[in-house]
């Protein structure tokens, strides 16, 4: 059986390589972008392939972010990892800890002699994907942050003439919206923990967890349950949930349709929701900065990113790494970056790309697109707003969401739920700390 299999595989390989007679070096790129963004990925790859003849980037869609990461991990364990793997920001700590499995981007660029300056990227973005020494480990590809999407027609109908800037104003507006017929949902949030814990803490300069939210070490401990601002925010959410002035919309982005359908006029979620809103909203809309509590000193601080970065996997031949490095350079070029961010609502990752879009007058046409950049660069980041790096964050987010759901359904008091979220999260962190050594 073994011989038969090897003959089959061998002949398949022979056919394959003979078809590839032109000897282009193939670069496998596994990504998680579906729908229109998936088509954009294919366009980027095709444009790169057309721009030179030596390398060929082959993008493959691998499902959701979690699916793609798991596919990459499984492929690595089986010895067949792709060259480039798109991993969402919550997988960052896991990837970083897997030292032998990845090739740090700064090292890749140095070894292949590609021109590369990590300072030419937005610090708020790269900080997330760099070591404490500032070495960039993965290539920031698609980054977004939380903004509040606003249905202006609905606000007009409810007699709210100013887009709410603070949380008290937001709840007021949502109460008026309810009276004006939006009784199923005044305000809501997608990605419940990313918006209400992770970005909320950064925006209010509250510590989410010790050791600069884990950036300074895996021995971090969750602290947001001790923040009066966070507790107060969740008490408000629970209070307003009763009358659907705030209405919970799920753990990820499954509730985003409630904004575009007009059901939920105020909706906090990713700035990259823009492409979808542009395509589907049949009302006058805009994006506004996240609301804040004015009585919290220092708020608003700056927001933190979500989205994904590109990790280069280890153990590939030098010739292939050369192609990967060339592709990274291509991706960072202002024209490509500006096009990608204008189409999708993701942040331009270099100041050069930002300027490029500005010069084209893009932000005059679509002011909503600039909100995200303004939020992320609002102030010099502090220990609490540089980013976060928690191991097994996917699992931890589920735990947090579970506890939030308990609080929102009245099964647990807010403080008890947040304490449990912290305690259970810490257990996962300790487990991760042991495997990451």
């Amino acid at each position, binding site marked *: 059986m073994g011989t038969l299999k090897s003959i089959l595989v061998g002949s398949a390989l022979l056919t394959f390589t003979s078809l590839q007679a032109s000897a282009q070096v193939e670069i496998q790129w596994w990504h998680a972008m579906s729908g229109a963004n998936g088509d954009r990925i294919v366009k980027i790859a095709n444009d790169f392939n057309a721009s030179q003849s030596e390398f060929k980037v082959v993008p493959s869609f691998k499902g959701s972010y979690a699916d793609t990461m798991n596919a990459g*991990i499984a492929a690595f364990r089986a010895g067949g990892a792709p060259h480039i793997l798109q991993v969402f920001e919550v997988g960052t700590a896991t990837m970083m800890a897997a030292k032998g499995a990845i090739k740090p981007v700064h090292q890749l660029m140095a070894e292949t002699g590609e021109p590369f300056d990590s300072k030419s990227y937005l610090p708020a973005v790269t900080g997330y994907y760099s070591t404490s020494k500032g070495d960039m480990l993965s290539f920031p590809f698609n980054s977004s942050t939380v903004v509040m999407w606003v249905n202006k027609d609905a606000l007009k109908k409810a007699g709210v003439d100013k887009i709410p800037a603070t949380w008290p104003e937001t709840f007021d507006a949502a109460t008026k919206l309810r009276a004006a017929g939006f009784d199923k949902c005044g305000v809501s949030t997608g990605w419940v923990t990313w918006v209400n814990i992770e970005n909320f803490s950064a925006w209010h300069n509250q510590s989410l967890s010790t050791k600069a939210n884990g950036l300074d070490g895996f021995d971090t401990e969750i602290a947001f349950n001790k923040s009066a601002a966070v507790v107060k925010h969740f008490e408000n959410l629970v209070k307003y949930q009763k009358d659907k002035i705030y209405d919970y919309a799920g753990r990820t982005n499954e509730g985003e349709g409630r904004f575009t359908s007009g059901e939920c006029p105020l909706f906090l979620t990713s700035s990259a929701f823009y492409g979808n809103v542009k395509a589907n909203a049949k009302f006058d809309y805009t994006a506004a900065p996240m609301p804040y509590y004015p009585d919290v000193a220092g708020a608003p601080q700056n927001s933190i990113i979500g989205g994904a970065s590109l990790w280069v996997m280890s153990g590939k031949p030098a010739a292939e790494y050369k192609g990967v490095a060339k592709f990274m350079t291509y991706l960072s070029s202002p024209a490509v970056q500006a096009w990608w961010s204008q189409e999708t609502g993701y942040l331009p990752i270099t100041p050069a790309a930002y300027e490029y879009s500005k010069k084209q007058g893009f932000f005059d046409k679509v002011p909503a697109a600039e909100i995200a950049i303004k939020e992320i660069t609002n102030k010099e980041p502090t220990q609490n707003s540089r980013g976060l790096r928690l191991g097994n964050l996917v699992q931890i987010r589920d735990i947090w969401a579970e506890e939030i*759901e*308990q609080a929102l359904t009245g099964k647990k008091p807010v403080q008890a739920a947040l304490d449990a979220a912290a305690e259970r999260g810490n257990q996962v962190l300790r487990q991760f700390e042991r495997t990451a050594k």
Partner: protein
Amino acid sequence: MEKRSYFAGKLLPYALLMPQLLVTIVFFYVPAGQAVYQSFLLQDAFGMSTQFVWLENYQLLLSDPGYYQAMTVTAVFSVAVTTLSLSAALLLAVQADKSLRGAGIYKTLLIWPYAVAPVVAGVLWLFMFQPSLGMVAGGLRRMGVDWNPYLNSGDALTLVVLAAAWKEVSYNFLFFLAGLQAIPKSLIEAAAIDGARPTRRFWTIIFPLLSPTAFYLLTVNIVYVFFDTFGIIHAVTHGGPAGATTTLVYKVFNDGRAGGDLGGSAAQSVILMAIVIALTAVQFRFIERKVNY
């Protein structure tokens, strides 16, 4: 004289058994063995560092209230799905067994859902019951029912039970129908002549004669609920809200794949395997005795 074929030597019988044994070894014993081994390890997602931790994964698991919640959810879920799908299928099969016009069409239509993959079944039900998009959900809300499976654990569990049971009705229906058609008409006629009414005929003749089918289906359904409903749960609720639809097998997946905790996940699957083996053994030992063959 008794005719009996026998094989000289031991080689041929083993050779004939080989394919089946190989399949069982490759697809059951090896993976099960790996799961048991993995459950003693603490490993990172990439398999770069491995520590042997003996029973620590099991200790952690058994001290986790979430695990007991998953057990309760699984118990409720499996009883609800099995009862619902078996009784609905039996009712439908008894009705379809009557001489009706177009019975063939009904039968075909009833069997169709079996061809639907669990995930697709889940998505179909989600389309109807999603709070903001679903037609049925919209109707419920207009009637004043505060339907929200994203937040209300009862609603979420109801939805996955309905989807899972609906999916399994076809299979059960098919077997019940075949079982019904195998019952000799003469028995039923004799009872009718003796004056037994349809209900009585059903409970004293048809149902006992169906019991081997029902028993087989019970076993298959339990296995289905334990393992195959995973796709439905993943598509509809992701195990939420607050773990209200996280069954044991979903927890295995979520902790292992999404959470990257392979050791804990392996420990869970070992326990799950033990539970299913025990359940099946109990079924065969105690329930089978009451079954008429």
